[in-house]
């Protein structure tokens, strides 16, 4: 029983990490394309950008809904504490997602597309910003009492560390959005996004380096974890692998390859994710509340694994199938049925 109470929260930590990773990867390129649409100056181009997402954006966003529900069920304490502590960034994200989602429908039917173009681009930016601040302030730490309830103030989430994470996440989304568009478009549009991908690679790299350096310098708790044998070898490996992957990404962009940049970007995301996971584990609110403290009862965790666990491969299957059905380049800016 003891072992089970240790094991189940770990399983759910991994499942949630998977959901979060799938969300950040899939909606990441959605949001990135949205942010990039702000730089586009004509409507045909924006139409193509939106068409490249038209049939997948809602399925991609569903991973967030799923992540929210699963976090609520598996770690209710963390769900309540994190979300109430991050009231403003979460609401910002929610409003961003609202604007972005309805822009898909309304823009297509509208004659004056200006407002909905803006709603799509700015909504994507706002949602990414909210997520970045949420991630950044969870990593930076949330003040809680001994019962795990939030005791900080309204603007706790806003500090230079969370700003750094937020900006880096946005760069990362722009990067994955650019490499997605390289894959889905051709001609001038593809060339443009090859360029945006290169810029974003650079800015993401700068952000990642700053985060990597500042984390052990400014966070005592993390520092002692990072410089502990034998973990230090794993933590040293991650930046090295990261540099390697970024080098590969840059080369594939130079060679103007079509699919490779997207795949390298995904691997970079995956690596960063594993790094974050290792730093955070076993905490769910870093260095305050562990997954064991925040976990729902074992029976709830088992029950949820039975119902959700077996669905994960099925969900992955039909989501992949959908990408297969709609594979290929997007050439036309109309997605209405």
């Amino acid at each position, binding site marked *: 029983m003891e072992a089970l109470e240790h094991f189940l929260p770990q399983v759910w930590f991994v499942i949630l990490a998977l959901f979060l990773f799938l969300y950040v990867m899939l909606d990441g390129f959605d949001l990135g394309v949205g942010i990039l649409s702000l730089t586009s100056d004509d409507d045909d181009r924006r139409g193509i950008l939106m068409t490249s997402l*038209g*049939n*997948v954006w*809602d*399925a991609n*966003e*569903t991973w967030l*809904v*799923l992540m*929210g*529900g*699963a*976090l*609520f*069920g598996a*770690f*209710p*304490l963390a*769900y*309540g*504490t994190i*979300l*109430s502590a*991050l*009231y*403003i960034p*979460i*609401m910002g994200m*929610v*409003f961003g*997602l*609202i*604007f972005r*989602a*309805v822009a*898909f*429908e*309304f823009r297509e*039917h*509208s004659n004056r597309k200006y407002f909905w173009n803006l709603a799509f681009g700015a909504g994507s930016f706002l949602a990414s910003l909210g997520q970045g601040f949420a991630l950044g302030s969870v990593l930076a730490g949330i003040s809680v009492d001994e019962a795990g*309830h939030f005791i900080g103030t*309204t603007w706790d989430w806003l500090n230079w560390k969370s700003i750094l994470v937020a900006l880096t996440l946005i760069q990362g989304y722009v990067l994955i959005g650019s490499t997605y568009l390289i894959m889905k478009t051709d001609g001038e549009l593809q060339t443009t996004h090859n360029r945006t991908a290169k810029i974003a690679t650079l800015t993401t790299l700068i952000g990642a380096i700053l985060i990597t350096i500042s984390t052990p310098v400014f966070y005592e708790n993390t520092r002692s974890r990072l410089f502990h044998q034998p973990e230090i070898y794993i933590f040293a490996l991650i930046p090295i692998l990261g540099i390697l992957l970024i080098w590969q990404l840059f080369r594939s962009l130079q060679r103007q390859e079509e699919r490779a940049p997207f795949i390298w970007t995904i691997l970079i995301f995956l690596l960063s994710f594993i790094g974050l996971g290792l730093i955070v584990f076993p905490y769910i609110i870093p260095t305050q509340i562990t997954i064991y403290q925040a976990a*729902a*009862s074992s*029976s*709830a965790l088992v*029950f*949820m694994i039975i*119902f*959700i666990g077996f*669905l994960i491969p099925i*969900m992955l299957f*039909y*989501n992949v199938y*959908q990408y297969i*059905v*709609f594979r290929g380049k997007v050439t036309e800016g109309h*997605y*209405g*049925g």
Partner: protein
Amino acid sequence: MDLSNTVVLSRMQFALTAIFHMLWPVLTTGMGIYLVIVEGMWLKTRNPDYYLHARFWSKLYVLNFGIGVASGIPMEFQFGTNWAPFAEATGDFFGSILGFEASMAFMLEAGFLGIMLFGWERVHPVIHYFATIMVAFGANLSIFWILSANSWLQTPAGGEMVNGKFVVHDYFQAILNPFMAKSVLHMFFATLETSLFVIGGISAWYILKNRHQAFFSKSLKIALAAAVAVAPIQIYMGHLSAEQVYHYQPTKLAAMEARWETIPAGESGDWTVIALPNEKAQKNDWEIAIPKALGYILEFKPKLSEPVLGLKEWKPEDRPHMVGLIYYAFRIMSGIGFFLATLMLWSVLQWLRGKLGAENITQQRWLLRTWMFAAPLGYIAIEAGWIVRCVGRQPWTVYGQIRTVDAASHVPASNVLTSLTSFAVVYTILFISAMYFGSRIIRIGPNLNLPIPGIEDETAVDTTPAEFVPDQRPVEAQQ
């Protein structure tokens, strides 16, 4: 209204977002079934009309779906942002159910929607039909999970409160809580009925406008044929739901009936048709009542076998407020239910008399106008029903277990006031835009020149047999 009270503001915000959000999934769940029907008829008969129906109505479907998703996301996150103590206390059950809804229902709908909308030319018709079925199935499975979760708030079962946390002993008992089955069915038929009258109402508009009469008399008849069964069943489901409120939530029943004094078992009670409840004086200022009718309404017999408790049985802090709102919301809902059933009867009568044929349907102007008038009524009934259900549950979030005042997050009221105001503005924009673009889709009308999949000559839809299912029947029979 106290704008410095976080609980009041959080309640208003939840009510506002729920009332707006509700408007859109209603159509996607009900119309999903309609789309399965017309696509099935297209596959079976190969009559291009059915294909064009599927294409036309799915435009409205996707508009509703997009706004439904957009307006639904805040619902989920509010449990954490605004109701953190609730989330912590009920996470074991309530959170799990939201996870099930996302993984089983919503993901299914979202995952197959792309294929349903844009996959006509990309996948085999059978796979396309499968996708349509999955979309409808996913949407309706959402009803099951959401209503199971909400019913559990009304009749928490399957566990107990231990140190302020709900510990589940039996998950199936919690999912299958006393309110669940009838609530799910009541909501299922509500969305279906609303969608049918929306489809019927829009069809009636086209017929009245002399646009595509033959085409839209078809959808009107499909809607009518389904409504024949749905409208009376829904009245019956409504009765069953009221009956379970009578047994499990006496405070809500008392508010629904604006009843202040208890009627003991074995007696008969009056049933008020209209009343003016006065919460301060704890009585109705005036009322029109039908003597001895209450027993017939609740139990189909003159004398009550159980007492009907009046609001005065509870201390003021233990009973729902806004009695007038609950009382009239209930009457609006049931009134609409009966109205729609009557409209259905009238239409069937005309159909049987042969007055709804493509050639003479335009003469039924009053009938068609009534269908148009009926199109928004289902929505009003659903909103009213949810007001009865959730305002009537107060002062409890989890009935008898967790009070609403104890369920709210301790966030500054100014935060909630800001988000509430933003929601009010944004949702108003959404609502106006949805009405505008929705009516625009309707004004533009169906594109009857769409190429029919599987038929090579795009213009002569009725000549070449389909590619996938060779039709051996004579040309006339294929129409």
